[in-house]
């Protein structure tokens, strides 16, 4: 067992290094991941250590990055590819949706596609267009893909190791706003790819989030505690499949649900989670479930991102609404359920 303090970015790098070390079939590929070490320096030093045959600087073509990874998997490789930023994943969507995600199904189980696609995602870093998006809904709607996230260095390390070890294709979304935040990492800690985790227990409201928003959710729980409100914080971790059981169990205790993420709300992970919880625990809900998400607009210029992103205040406001307390959005004091 090794426990170390690492930034989230370094934890990702460490997971990649350990995977390369542990399995000769693991191959990394992406734009600028070699000498530069990636634009976030996550792969720093890996090409020097493992060679240019295993840490491959790819030409600038995302469809080819995923498509050739599929071909490598046909020959037994376990490729881990990097898409430089969330907004650049769309040229690869065809290979992800029509090939990678369904070759196992298409071949009736004869082929496996142990390909991991790493995508730094999310906003809040003051960047320009296409550098702050949250494309997870596109992947979560796609059968055959697993979609996972991490919010802490520990989760980043353990979940990425699980993703690389998985025989299914996995989209691993890295919350870039948290690349520089540090935490302890126990490299022996093993994660699976389909369970959510209750990070904070609380009896009043269930607050489910993932990625960078988990930290905001934890902050919200802390802030609410001062007002005597107990928020139960769930890190969803796996976006697809969603661990509805864990959320339902929580809602059965709290009767209230708030879901937060950065992506737009329309046809999103929060739509699905609310629909799923309603289907499974309609009777347990005592108030209207609430969403705190990016708005249904393109990601705005960075000067406005604090308005766009689910902030601490917006989350607390939703918690208040859910509890029938004063809502700054409606200006009303609501009694009981927010019907």
């Amino acid at each position, binding site marked *: 067992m090794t426990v170390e303090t690492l930034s989230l970015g370094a934890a990702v790098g460490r997971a990649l290094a350990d995977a390369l070390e542990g399995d000769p079939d693991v191959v990394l590929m992406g734009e600028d991941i070699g000498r530069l070490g990636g634009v976030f320096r996550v792969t720093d030093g890996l090409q020097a250590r493992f060679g240019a045959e295993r840490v491959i600087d790819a*030409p600038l073509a995302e469809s080819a990055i995923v498509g050739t990874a599929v*071909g490598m998997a046909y020959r037994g490789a376990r490729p881990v590819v990097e898409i430089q930023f969330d907004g650049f994943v769309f040229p690869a969507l065809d290979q992800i949706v029509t090939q990678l995600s369904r070759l196992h199904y298409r*071949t009736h189980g004869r082929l496996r596609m142990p390909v991991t696609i790493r995508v730094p995602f999310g906003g809040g870093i003051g960047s320009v267009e296409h550098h702050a998006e949250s494309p997870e809904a596109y992947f979560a709607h796609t059968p055959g893909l697993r979609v996972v996230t991490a919010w802490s260095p520990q989760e980043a390390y353990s979940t990425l190791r699980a993703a690389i070890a998985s025989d299914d294709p996995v989209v691993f979304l890295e919350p870039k706003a948290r690349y520089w935040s540090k935490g302890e990492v126990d490299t022996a800690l093993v994660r699976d790819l389909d369970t959510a985790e209750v990070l904070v227990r609380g009896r009043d409201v269930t607050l489910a989030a993932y990625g960078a928003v988990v930290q905001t959710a934890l902050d919200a729980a802390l802030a609410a505690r001062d007002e005597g409100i107990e928020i139960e914080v769930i890190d969803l971790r796996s976006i697809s499949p969603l661990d*509805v059981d864990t959320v339902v169990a929580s809602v059965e205790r709290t009767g209230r649900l708030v879901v937060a993420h950065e992506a737009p709300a329309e046809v999103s992970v929060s739509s699905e989670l609310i629909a799923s919880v309603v289907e499974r625990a309609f009777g347990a809900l005592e108030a209207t479930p609430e969403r705190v998400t990016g708005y249904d607009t393109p990601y705005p210029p960075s000067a406005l991102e604090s308005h766009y992103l689910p902030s601490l205040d917006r989350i607390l406001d939703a918690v208040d609404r859910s509890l029938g307390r004063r809502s700054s959005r409606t200006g009303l004091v609501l009694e009981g359920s927010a019907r």
Partner: protein
Amino acid sequence: MSIAIPAPRSELVEGLDTPLGVLAPDGSRRACRTLDEHLADLDETALTDLFVDMSLVRRVDEEAFALTRQGELVLWPPLRGQEAAQVGAAHALRETDFVFGSYREHALAVLRGVDLGDLLRVWQGHALSGWDPLAHRMATPQIIIGAQTLHATGYAMAVRRDGGDDIAVACFGDGATSEGDVSEAMVFASSFQAPVVFLCQNNQYAISEPVRVQSHAALALRATGFGIPAIRVDGNDVLAVLAAMRAAADRARRGEGPTFVEAVTYRMGPHTTTDDPGRYRDADEVDAWRAKDPIDRLERHLASVGAPIEHIREEARIRCDAIAKEMRAAVVKGEAPAPESLFDHVTVTPTRRIRRQRAEHLAFAASIQEER
């Protein structure tokens, strides 16, 4: 006043003006410096094999066509006219090489030992793919145009990493050359000097669109812009295709990187059994290509070199009849999949969500069954 920006020159690609070939439509053999050295070992037996194989795959195609008309298959993309291109390619490969085809590569599948029932399962609507791609070292049909060229390239990149001398072959059509994926495949193949052969069967049409919609320049020229050598051959001349594919495979095995082979041929039939080519091409054009039939010309050549052509024809006929019978039997035997299989293999370990949907659906289906 203008500068003379030079137009592409024909010296760039062998066969750019006239595709290279060694067998004329009348079966006469002509010399070709480039191709001949790859054909030196071909004796009468080898020629006979090529003839029989082409006859066989034509019969497979005819029979599948008929089975579609009889409602046994939901769809069939016929290969008629392209037998030389595919049989020539198949004969140039080792069993350990990996073929990534489109949906029309039936001949390659048959010659790589795919069971006929497995071949037809997809076109019966019973399965999304019929055979084990790893066992036959051939990917199952690819419907997304051009997507497989990246898989072939990635496979070849992995071969290089292994240090093996296997190669990958990407088969695609003239229409496919327009898709971004095919260009990206050439970028990666060239950049990593991957042992992949790009076999473009230019059958003159992408459904209704003649090849000039995709390109004014010869398709083989496309590759050279990516730094990939290209060769353009008469795709109805099985020996020319065999030689070009051998040459390209040799280059790849020697670590010299990718090669692009354009086989100039013609799709004699409709795009698929639901197509109506009468809407977009003339009978004259089809007739002109019929005169260049790949099987007839090898038959004439065999006769001209004194091979026992009657005997060979008879042998082919017997095997063709047998394979046709086998196909009909396979189709009759082919069973629709069980409903529960709908939920299999979405992921390697089923998720709770899929397990729940499966259980609910089966309960529902059983109750419906009961009611009836």
